[in-house]
């Protein structure tokens, strides 16, 4: 009825998404810069070297990506190089959290290590199956890279899940920073896995929306990391019980021992 208006809305819609992606990307870069500053200022980079390297790399990769936007081939290679390095460092971050969580618990470390090794073996196998089952992994370099990314994200998500399950089963208490790092990474890699998996099922417009989801996921993770790193650790509550119950307890224990 109003062709001019309709086309105007269409143009506006088409223009909105790239702007949204650009703005979200810029917000992400700002947050990455802030997180880098927080890590350096608080000396957390010494405590979490792999996580710090992961954040620095994402920050540098973001800046390089923006500067190479008008050179598609250079952008393609730099983007995928950054992704590969990011995935490798992501796995090292999981290892770092695992070490922080279990090293102090000698009795649990051995069992946790064995559990993790078994889980890693199973996840590697699952990753390989997913990679070889992917029908498009031999058709082009980009599709092969996506298949590799999907397989490695499965390993990353699986390891993080095992980490959370083990800590819950063993009744371990997470420190603020470690919990935040694991949670932020978990949220980000899970949405990355979803995006990579759904990529071949959606059209061009859907792919753009998935891109928005990936950038939003990264921004949310950065907010989670900043939030947990900046919030002070909660103090342990004082534990107390009434004296009468203590005597009852002592008696019960003594009776049991003397049997």
């Amino acid at each position, binding site marked *: 009825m109003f062709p001019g208006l309709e086309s105007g809305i269409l143009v506006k819609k088409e223009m909105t998404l790239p702007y949204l992606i650009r703005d979200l990307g810029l917000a992400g870069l700002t947050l990455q810069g802030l997180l880098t500053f927080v890590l350096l200022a608080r000396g957390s980079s010494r405590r979490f070297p792999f996580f710090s390297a992961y954040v620095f790399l994402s920050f540098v990769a973001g800046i390089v990506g923006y500067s190479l936007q008008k050179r598609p081939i250079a952008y393609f290679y730099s983007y995928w190089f950054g992704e590969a390095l990011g995935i490798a460092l992501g796995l090292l971050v999981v290892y770092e959290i695992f070490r922080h969580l279990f090293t*102090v*618990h*000698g*009795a*649990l470390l051995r*069992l946790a290590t064995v559990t993790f090794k078994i889980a890693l073996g199973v996840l590697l196998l699952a990753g390989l*199956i*997913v990679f070889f*089952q*992917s029908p498009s992994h031999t058709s082009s370099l980009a599709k092969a890279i996506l298949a590799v990314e*999907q397989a490695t994200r*499965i390993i990353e*998500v*699986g390891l*993080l*899940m095992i980490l*959370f*399950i083990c800590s*819950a*089963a*063993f*009744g*371990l*208490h*997470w420190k603020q920073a470690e*919990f935040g790092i694991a*949670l932020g990474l*978990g*949220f980000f890699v*899970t*949405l990355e*896995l*979803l995006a990579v*998996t*759904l990529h071949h*099922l959606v059209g061009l417009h859907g792919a753009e929306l998935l891109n928005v989801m990936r950038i939003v996921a990264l921004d949310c993770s950065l907010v989670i990391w900043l939030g947990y790193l900046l919030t002070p650790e*909660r103090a*342990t*509550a*004082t*534990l*107390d*019980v009434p004296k009468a*119950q*203590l005597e*009852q*307890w*002592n008696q*019960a*224990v003594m*009776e*049991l*021992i003397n*049997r």
Partner: protein
Amino acid sequence: MITVIVIALALCAVVLFYMAVRSRRKQAVQSLRQVDLTAFHTLLDRDDELFLQRKLPRSKFVGLKRHRIRVTVRYVARIASNASAVLHASEAARLSPMPEVASTAAQVMDLAAQIRLQCLLALFKLSLEYAMPSLQLTPAMLVPKYQTLRENVRRLGDLQTQNSIPLANAI
């Protein structure tokens, strides 16, 4: 098919992370709860169980045993929760500049971790017995370990000037 499995894995991960956040909030207000060891010991008594098995019809015995297992599970969960709280409470003492305090705290943490493992084992055995009530699996050696933990926590409390008695006696 693989796509569906991967999406399911991702959704499970999201649920797990959400539960972890909720559980962490709950942990912040976690406190020690006493365990009535006499009752716990009665629940684990195999002679009692054999007596009931001889005297009761099978269907009644199965119902009773399952009920007994459900109650035992609650006791084991309480011991596990206490061990976890001790684990957390001893972390600061492990970094103490006093070597004796640090080594006792390390021992306490080690024991608490072992008790957590034994609780897992006990829960596994109880699940098997719940599924197959005719089974009689040896109960986990929770009680002696728990007693040793209590003694070590008391020793740790004695070594530290502040907060000496409550934690030792609460478990």
